[in-house]
């Protein structure tokens, strides 16, 4: 096992950043630490890198105890949200930095830099300064720089957080392909569940300094351990004291016999191919999402009456008190920016 985190505690003054966290991160995989801001995921990443020290607990990297090692000795590649480019050095010299520190022979450094710049598609920019690159290019340079030292593990702290939506999506696909090529154990921190679901082999959901669930994207989405994980991974709505996904609701204009509830349509919003339906069920707001064709068949109108039940195989999780009702209210967006608890 590549990274073993054992019983890590970390406080900043009165604030508990990490509360007895234990985690095993497998070798050669792409793992996402997913959770809301301030949940402790970045702190955990920084502790693995040695940039922060844990109050108690141990860290092992590839079987070697790294708890008391300084960052210089851990052989980890670290990529920061804001690139952390060495502004006075060219792209090539940024990438060469780690190798120059290691006093590798010059021809070897040159060859390695060329190889890495090709890998991150920056070979034409070798002699530019970081200020002459776009954000996405700077982040690819930072990645090449981190990979140059052939790190045991590659750690990325919100690597695409400072980029605009389009570039973020491009880089996300590119990171996945890069990982398939390079196979270095990679951990990245994100608060964007779409990013985690799309890119990661394994997702660790962290909230309020604790691990909520560890699993593959499918496991997390289909078998969320609790209401937090479920609500964090996509839009949810509350029905009969349970959480269910809006697209997992079956709507009918006449009583199908097994309906969980009956409600009145209060609002209809069409967004592209889907129609979002807001219902009033005994004074409670319930959201459902149907396709355009279904909406036409049901002849949906505001003020109309609908019978509702979850579809067969729908993910249903009991809503607990810690999930504030306000977090679920309103017709949610495309799911990419569902507001999680604690934000």
């Amino acid at each position, binding site marked *: 096992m590549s990274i073993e985190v054992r019983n890590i505690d970390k406080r900043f003054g009165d604030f508990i950043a990490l509360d007895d966290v234990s985690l095993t991160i497998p070798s050669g995989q792409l793992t996402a630490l997913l959770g809301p801001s301030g949940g402790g995921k970045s702190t955990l990443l920084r502790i693995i*890198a*040695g*940039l922060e020290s844990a109050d108690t607990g141990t860290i092992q990297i590839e079987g070697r105890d790294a708890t008391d090692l*300084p*960052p*210089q000795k*851990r*052989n*980890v*590649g*670290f990529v*920061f949200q*804001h690139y*952390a*480019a*060495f*502004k*006075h*050095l060219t792209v090539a*010299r940024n990438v060469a*930095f*780690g190798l120059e*520190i*290691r006093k590798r022979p010059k021809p070897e450094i040159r060859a390695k830099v060329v190889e890495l710049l090709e890998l991150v*598609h920056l070979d*034409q*920019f070798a002699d530019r300064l970081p200020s*002459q*690159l*776009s954000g*996405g*290019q700077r982040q690819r340079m*930072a990645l090449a*720089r*981190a990979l*140059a*030292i052939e790190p045991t593990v590659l750690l990325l702290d919100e690597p695409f957080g400072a980029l605009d939506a389009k570039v973020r999506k491009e880089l996300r696909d590119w990171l996945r392909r890069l990982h398939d090529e390079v196979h270095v154990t990679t951990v990245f921190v994100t608060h964007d569940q779409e990013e985690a679901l799309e890119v990661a082999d394994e997702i660790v959901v962290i909230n309020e300094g604790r691990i909520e669930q560890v699993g593959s994207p499918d496991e997390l989405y289909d078998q969320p351990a609790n209401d937090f994980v479920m609500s964090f991974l996509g839009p949810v709505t509350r029905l009969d004291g349970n959480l269910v996904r809006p697209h997992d609701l079956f709507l009918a204009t006449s009583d199908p016999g097994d309906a969980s509830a009956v409600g009145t349509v209060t609002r209809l919003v069409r967004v592209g191919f889907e129609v979002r339906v807001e219902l009033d069920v005994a004074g409670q707001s319930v959201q459902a999402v149907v396709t355009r064709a279904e909406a036409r068949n049901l002849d949906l109108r505001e003020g109309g009456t609908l019978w509702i039940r979850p579809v067969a195989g729908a993910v249903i999780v009991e809503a607990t008190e810690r999930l504030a009702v306000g977090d679920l209210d309103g017709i949610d967006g495309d799911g990419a920016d569902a507001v999680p608890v604690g934000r």
Partner: protein
Amino acid sequence: MTAVDVAAPARTARRRRSGRANGLTATSGLGLGVSVIWFSLLVLIPLSAVLVKTSEGGWSGFWTTISNEQTAAALRLTVGQALLVTVVNVFMGTLIAWVLVRDEFFGKRALEVVIDIPFALPTIVAGLVLLSLYGANSPVGVNVANTRTSVFVAFLFVTLPFVVRTVQPVLAELDADVEEAAASLGASRFTIFRRIILPALVPAISAGAALSFARAISEYGSLVLLSGNLPLRTEVTSVRMLSYIENGDLASASAVATILLLVALVVIVALDVIQRRVSRRG
């Protein structure tokens, strides 16, 4: 993301900029005009006047003045001590700035304020302070009155804030994650300082050094009491110039001023060259 789509806008931008240089907008034209007039009134015209005054004596007059034994000694003393003080300031100023930015300690705020005092004080007050502290009746038992050391000490006192104040804001603005990135790439703390922090600080250090040197070669008030102004030994150029003026020899005073002007120019240009070299090297 190819070379083309990045290089192309850069090229057009450059063309656009050079196109505009021929026709300034009304506001920027006005701004430039005011700046040039202001600069001319305060700097260019007085400096030209000094040069004109110097030329009145002709080459031979100029040469006679600066080859005068007493004047040459004053120039050597002033420039020599100013260079020495500037070197000391480069190290001490950077160190003090580092302590003020990176460390938390009791009395930090007080120190921040005290740093500026040598700069804010009227120089003759500084001279008085130095005389009573390091003069003949020194309470600490250090008597440097009428020695070259007194010139050095006075220069040190008045130029202390320059490097500190230019380096401090730049150091405070440096991103912590850049240093962390260097650390995770294996760089030791010393290497991080030398290869990452120092190149970022060099322009500020150089600017502070230039200010500190310029202030030192022009210093008068803070040393005039303590140094004793002994000809050939502790007399500095500003004192020498004053005695020329008092004797009605304005041409000689201007000649010395011209030399100081040239020295200042050479040092400032040299610092700029060094600064460019070092901040590129990394």
